[in-house]
């Protein structure tokens, strides 16, 4: 008896089963999830990133940052991401709908970056990143993140010094030779813009009603005892 066709059929259905269950079902059920339009300001959330940050995401991708940094805040009660200050709330599927490529990550050699733009914001945040990428141990002693000095350029000052020169932020040992200055390459500017853009909005009403389970307050816990 030739059992090859029967074996083949079994092999076919085995994979068809998980493809239908994991991929197709979820694609149908939330593959067309849209942004939430806030009626108060008429804006769609999560907001799209501006051009510089979008280019910075490609730098993040080509340098392989995702292998040490996740971009997902776990829900309260599962890990202590919120206590660590990695976000005000757990991440939900809608946070990612505007992204061409999703970098959830699977490793936390370094901290989660989903809301790094909230932790380091504005000019201070920018300056922190300029120091951090040049040599991570300037801002974070004991860090094992690789230095990213290839995102900077040391060049001779021609005419007036650049307004964008960054060496004043760096410690003594990194000062360039006299007559020279250190500036960020465009890739470096982009990557920092991306870091500053990483920040999830407040929770959307639909998820707040359905998914988000607020942590029991200490008073409630006491009462439960």
């Amino acid at each position, binding site marked *: 008896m030739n059992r090859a066709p029967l074996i083949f059929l079994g092999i076919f259905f085995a994979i068809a089963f998980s493809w239908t269950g994991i991929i197709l079902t*979820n694609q149908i059920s*939330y593959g067309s*999830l849209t942004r939430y339009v806030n009626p108060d300001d008429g804006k769609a959330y999560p907001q799209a990133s501006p051009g510089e940050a979008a280019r910075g995401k490609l730098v993040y991708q080509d340098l*392989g940052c995702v292998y040490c940094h996740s971009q997902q805040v776990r829900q309260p009660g599962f890990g202590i991401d919120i206590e660590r200050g990695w976000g005000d709330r757990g991440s939900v*599927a809608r946070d990612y709908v505007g992204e061409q490529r999703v970098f959830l990550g699977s*490793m936390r050699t370094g901290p989660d970056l989903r809301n790094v733009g909230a932790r380091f914001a504005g000019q201070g945040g920018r300056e922190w990143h300029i120091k951090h990428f040049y040599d991570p141990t300037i801002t974070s002693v*004991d860090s*094992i993140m690789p*230095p990213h000095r290839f995102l900077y350029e040391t060049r001779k000052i021609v005419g007036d010094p650049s307004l964008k020169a960054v060496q004043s932020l760096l410690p003594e040992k990194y000062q360039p030779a006299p007559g020279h200055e250190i500036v960020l390459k465009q890739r470096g500017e982009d990557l920092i813009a991306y870091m500053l853009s990483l920040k999830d909005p407040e929770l959307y009403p639909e998820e707040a009603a359905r998914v988000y389970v607020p942590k029991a307050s200490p008073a409630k816990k006491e009462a439960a005892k």
Partner: protein
Amino acid sequence: MASASQLASSLNPSASPELVKRAELSEIDASTKLPALFFFGSAILWLLAGTVFALLAAFKMHNPALLGDYEWLTFGRVRTAHLNAVIYGWSVNASFGVAFWLMARLSRAELRHSGMLLIAAAFWNIGVTLGIYGILTGDSTSIEWLEFPSYATPLLFFAYALVGAWTVITFRFGRSKHIYVSQWYILAALFWFPWLYSVAQIMLIFSPARGTVQSLVNWWFAHNVLGLWFTPIGLGAVYYFLPKVLGKPIHSYYLSVLGFWSLAIFYNWAGVHHLIGGPVPVWVQTAGITASFMMVIPVIVTAVNHHLTMVGNSSALKYSPTLRFTVFGAVAYTFTSLQGSSMSIRSWSELTHFTHYTIGHSHAGMYAFFTMVMFGSIYYILPRILLKEWPSAKLISLHFWACALGIIFMVLVLSFAGVKQGIDMNSLPIGADGKPGAPAPFLEIVKNTIPWLKLRSYSGILLTIGHLAFAVNFVWMLLKPRPAGATAPTLFRNGPELEVSR
């Protein structure tokens, strides 16, 4: 052992059926010679390249300044180059060679037009080279296990289609009436991989799905490359070499069938366990956990079947290199699969996910199981297609001990590091007042992992020594002249005649 005179006598109609069968196998082996050599040779080159990338990445983790000014050698790229070199370069090349060699033998069919497989091997290796070059120069997609840029993938797909088609054709032309369980595994793997790969390419790169559906596709693919490609090929090889070297049938035919179908049904749902606690629907996480747990069935069934085949023959491990590597791999398969099932438990996943524990687990699977089985297979296959024996038993012994101790050491170190890291990262220490205090500072956790990461690098040096011994023995074997008469297989020590040569 078949000598020239025995081959001649096998042409005699009065010769024993055993001799005729050996002559046939000999011809089948000869038909696979060039493509098998091409695949195994390039596999070994990629193994060495992957080892260099691995060492570099490992040392960079505790010494980030090492070659830190070269953008193309930054950690994120070298680590990715390592993964892709050992997966698509070493492991897939080796599994192709083992798959069609086994298929030809088990189907009792010579490989027809083996030149097509040479073309496939060339395309595959050009594709992998392009892909690694792309990763180092900044074209990585940063999608785990699918980092190759889109200009490398069509070459890989074409090469894959050729290998798959040729293996299936060999099966169709086979004279064997019976379909052995190794053939089931290989045929299934050949069918599953293109499905996985095409869906992943389409839904992640050419027309990306929206939001975290991408993550589901990603882990469905990445875990199934292990479960539906490497595992079936590895198990297929164990199912062949274990009884072959021992010269006795596999313990139970029914257990091997049960093992096959339970693996086929459960493994392909398990990948979602990489997303436990993530922003994907909870029901699909639960399904993934359930499937991960159901994997205990095929794993135990297969382990029992292999163990009962081995029982009473463990002294053969002293002599046969193939058996020693294969049995190490089979035991590691049981360990790593049960470990994987346990890692899907929510509370254990909460702790170990995002830590070095996972890295330890993936090395237990891809190295302690799969790579060791491939080493064993190559030790068996090459003497039969080259018609000469391995030059040095000492080098094989060095290879085995360096790799076996190295990988055990590595998995242990990474597991300890990961559990410590997971506890510190996910718990609030209880203060003197009995209330949970502030979490341990992140940089302190990083600092605590450094000694472990150094130990991991040392384990990598052990593996490197093993790989070099293997490569030297391989090149030496290619270069040494073929002996005129009969030869005895290279064993660790001279013992009773255990290995059936042909």
